[in-house]
């Protein structure tokens, strides 16, 4: 009841601001720009804020948690209306999140979650990594329609949660299908060059004609592997089917050129659902669910990939 009263009180004090969205000020503590996807997330977040007339205060933490904590403290000191946080690590957030809670500033987590009590943040907007892998596996199972298929897998960085979860999901996705088996699985460290190097060794170890499909944990490795397949004199996309995850612009281009078959989008638009939830919360106190799952959209040759490519290439990927 007490919580409800506080919520009501904050809703009332914030009501005039919420009524004029232009006056909303939101702080965004971003990890840094370690990947193209991250850069795109930053761009999209800024666009979403601008569209809604929100004043977004952006802080780049350059991959350091201490910078993020500093940024959050400064947001609190400036009295922002809400904070978006893309946490660089999972642990060590309790203290600063409590400070935000004491100041009655709602915090929304983007893309990753934290190991802290879930009443310390409003909600977390993330994708489901296992689900992404499952979509990829199911696509391949449907595509093969009962025919046997020897699959090679390019894993992400060994031990990283995307690599573990995307592997698990894919295995679940192909579990029901007869004759689909992963014959080789090796890490490509999420990079193009390692994707190419490891694919070269797959092609030699198994024989290119004995590989029916490639599943890569991200598009960059798939793009590298496509070059290796071409250099081995095979046709990527037809001789070897290729499915990967992330949907970066170059993957759309590869699908448009017929060199890749499918990609599952890890949307850079985490801010959209986050700001929707925040606006609703600040307007009338409707608390969102603790986890908002973003859509893992499947792109295949059936989509207009050239158009998506043109749309995405300006986002900073």
């Amino acid at each position, binding site marked *: 009841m007490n919580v409800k009263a506080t919520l009501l009180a904050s809703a009332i004090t914030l009501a005039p601001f919420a009524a004029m969205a232009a006056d909303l000020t939101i702080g965004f503590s971003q990890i840094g*720009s*370690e*990947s*193209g996807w991250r*850069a795109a997330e930053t761009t999209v977040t800024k666009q979403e804020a601008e569209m809604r007339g929100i004043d977004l205060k952006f802080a780049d933490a350059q991959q350091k948690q201490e910078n993020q904590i500093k940024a959050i403290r400064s947001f609190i000191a400036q009295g922002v209306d809400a904070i978006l946080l893309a946490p660089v690590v999972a642990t060590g957030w309790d203290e600063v999140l409590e400070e935000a809670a004491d100041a009655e500033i709602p915090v929304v987590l983007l893309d990753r979650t934290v190991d802290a009590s879930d009443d310390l943040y409003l909600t977390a907007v993330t994708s489901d990594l296992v689900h992404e892998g499952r979509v990829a596996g199911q696509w391949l199972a449907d595509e093969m329609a009962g025919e046997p298929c020897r699959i090679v897998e390019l*894993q992400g960085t*060994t*031990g990283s949660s995307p690599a573990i979860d995307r592997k698990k999901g894919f295995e679940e996705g192909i579990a029901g299908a007869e004759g689909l088996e992963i014959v*080789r*699985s*090796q*890490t490509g*460290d999420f*990079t*193009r*060059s*390692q994707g*190419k*190097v*490891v694919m*070269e*060794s797959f092609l*030699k*170890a198994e024989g290119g004609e004995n590989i029916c499909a490639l599943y890569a944990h991200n598009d*960059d490795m798939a*793009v*590298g592997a496509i*070059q290796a397949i071409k*250099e*081995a*004199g095979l046709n990527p996309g037809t001789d070897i089917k290729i499915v990967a995850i992330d949907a970066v612009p*170059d993957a759309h281009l590869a699908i448009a050129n017929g060199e890749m078959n499918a990609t599952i989008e890890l949307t850079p638009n985490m801010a959209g659902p986050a700001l929707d939830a925040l606006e609703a919360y600040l307007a009338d106190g409707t608390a969102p669910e603790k986890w908002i799952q973003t859509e893992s959209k499947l792109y295949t040759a059936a989509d207009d990939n050239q158009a998506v490519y043109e749309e995405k290439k300006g986002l*900073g*990927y």
Partner: protein
Amino acid sequence: MATTTPSLLKRITPQLIILAVVLGLNLLVFPDFFDVSFRNGRIFGNLVDVFNRGAPVALLCIGMTLVIATKGIDLSVGAVMAIAGATAASLVTDGHGWGTALIGALATGALCGAWNGVLVAVLRIQPIVATLVLMVAGRGIAQLITEGTILTFNNEGLIRLGAGTVLGIPTPIVIWLALGTLATLAVRRTALGMLIEAIGVNEASSRLAGINSRVLLICVYLASGLCAALAGVIVAADIKGADANNAGLWLELDAILAVVIGGNSLLGGRFSIVASLIGALIIQSVNSVILLSGMPPEFNLVIKAILILAILVIQSPKIGHLIYMLRASGPESLPERARPSAAPKEDAP
């Protein structure tokens, strides 16, 4: 100081044996390892991959050998690769030709090398710290050039440097073999190699002997920067894009390891570029074993560590001495007083 062929062969015998053993391991996990075919206008096979994928470390270790011979170390080569690749990529995407891009990248590499050289030779900063500066800052610089993205390009000339062929042989192989030969001739057919060794053994006395150690040191770091730049261009050309975050990541450590496996002492002095290059091939052969074995990737680093440890233990001075003693106690013993070849550190005369 010109190395004659028999003594060179003697010098690199341990490395050749190790290479043969590791290649044998490859054959064990993959029976068709030595099969080489001609496919799609190029030679194709696992052995070709070892030479091709070993190119970046081979190029790096040419410069690294020279730097280490002066008792220095160059930690920045991985970052310089990223900078050079980014420079080349941004030049071709701005519409310049591949020649301009290559020259631009090499010039950037030379500049980075000269910067290291000045810090070490003029400001007298410890090499490990001096080059650490660029190792840390370099990736940031590369990211500034690519604006944080993977900068892709379609310039055929530039791509040929990494993914093309010369007479059916992948270009990177041709480049590192050529540069390796050129560098070996340059240091062994002239007094250059001896002068570099003199600095490594005792810089003060080399200066008293009339060697302009300051200029020579700067030149050595500059050469290392050039090698790194060439490696960076090849890596970028190979994937048709400059990846500032990952290009050359941790390769400085592989390059140093190649030099060490090549039997060169980190304390400077006598060196052999050929032995380092074989060291680079050994490292790539180890990587090849891992990839072909089909083991889960969790084991990659463990396998690599065990193999490298075994190689280094076999090469250690103690074991070398033991082998020498065992041989010396044999019947037809007491050959010329040779040191165990695994410890080629030359003390001051």
